[in-house]
């Protein structure tokens, strides 16, 4: 049974993005997901496209196709992200910086730009971007990662101001440590360090992130825009 919402999720083939897609599918939404790899989710109502969000033309075509096919976009969740081994800035290769900027900054920019055009015309919509507590921690080894996520946050706040007159809200979720495959690959030492810095020293579940996103996507949050919500952390 469809709840009528059309939801876009980037990076939906694994980890947090897959969980977000499944959350909205369980509530009966139509979900358009994308990632650089093939679809994992096969539930009816899920529509997957292979898209590299840092590619302007691919992202533009994906958003345009979703809007044309379903007639609207109610919620866009910019989740696509990568985690890279933390190196001191002095020895961080430019390739790592480029990859982080491409996925986080360019990817979020292109998705938000194209989705904005659709939401402006329908005079409604919800945009949620995924960030990280790393933007406030000034974390050793996270110079490139945190900078790219800080850019995402600032972009979201500017967009929130720009789109507020059209009834579109834009908010940020900072999930804290989630044990995805990417996070596990970073190692136990990194995991312990993050938990030590969280106010609530435990991992966050994907469902808990979905609950926050669900609130930002709901009519109940229509008075809230440009906000970053920390999980497991006093901000």
């Amino acid at each position, binding site marked *: 049974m469809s709840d009528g919402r059309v939801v876009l999720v980037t990076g939906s083939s694994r980890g947090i993005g897959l969980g977000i897609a499944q959350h909205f599918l369980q509530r009966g939404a139509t979900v358009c997901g994308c990632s650089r790899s093939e679809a994992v989710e096969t539930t009816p109502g899920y529509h997957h496209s292979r898209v590299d969000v840092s590619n302007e033309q691919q992202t*533009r075509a994906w958003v345009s196709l979703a809007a044309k096919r379903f007639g609207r976009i109610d919620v866009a969740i910019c989740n696509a992200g990568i985690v890279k081994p933390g190196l001191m800035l002095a020895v961080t290769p430019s390739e790592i910086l480029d990859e982080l900027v491409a996925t986080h900054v360019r990817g979020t920019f292109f998705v938000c730009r194209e989705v*904005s*055009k*659709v939401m*402006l*015309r329908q005079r409604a919509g919800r945009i949620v971007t995924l960030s990280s507590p790393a933007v406030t921690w000034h974390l050793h080894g996270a110079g490139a990662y945190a900078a790219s996520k800080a850019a995402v946050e600032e972009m979201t706040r500017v967009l929130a101001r*720009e*789109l507020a007159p*059209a009834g579109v809200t834009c908010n940020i979720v900072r999930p804290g440590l989630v044990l995805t495959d990417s996070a596990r690959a970073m190692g136990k030492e990194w995991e312990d360090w993050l938990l030590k810095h969280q106010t609530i020293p435990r991992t966050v579940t994907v469902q808990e992130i979905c609950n926050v996103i669900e609130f930002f996507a709901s009519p109940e949050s229509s008075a809230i825009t440009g906000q970053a919500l920390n999980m497991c952390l006093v901000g």
Partner: protein
Amino acid sequence: MRPTEVLEIMADALEGLRRSEVAEPGPALNAETVLFGARAVLDSIGFVTFIAEAEDRLSEGRDTPIELVLTEIWEFSAEEPSLTAGVLANYCAKRLGKDA
């Protein structure tokens, strides 16, 4: 597509925005109508909505959607930050010809 045909499509797009109250009521669009800058008939949200609407209407029936890249419009420079419908129509006509 000729610039005059593009202007007709843009005029329809503007009227659509006026009907949905995204743009203020006003005279019909012509080549001199300022879309962006001093004395513009659209505010910033109206301008973005107009560009998106024009892209959609101009893309109808084409395999590849047209994208209006404002920086490509040579008349639309930082020194003279105003954009008329005529300038935009000329740009669109050239762009549609190039992409055809």
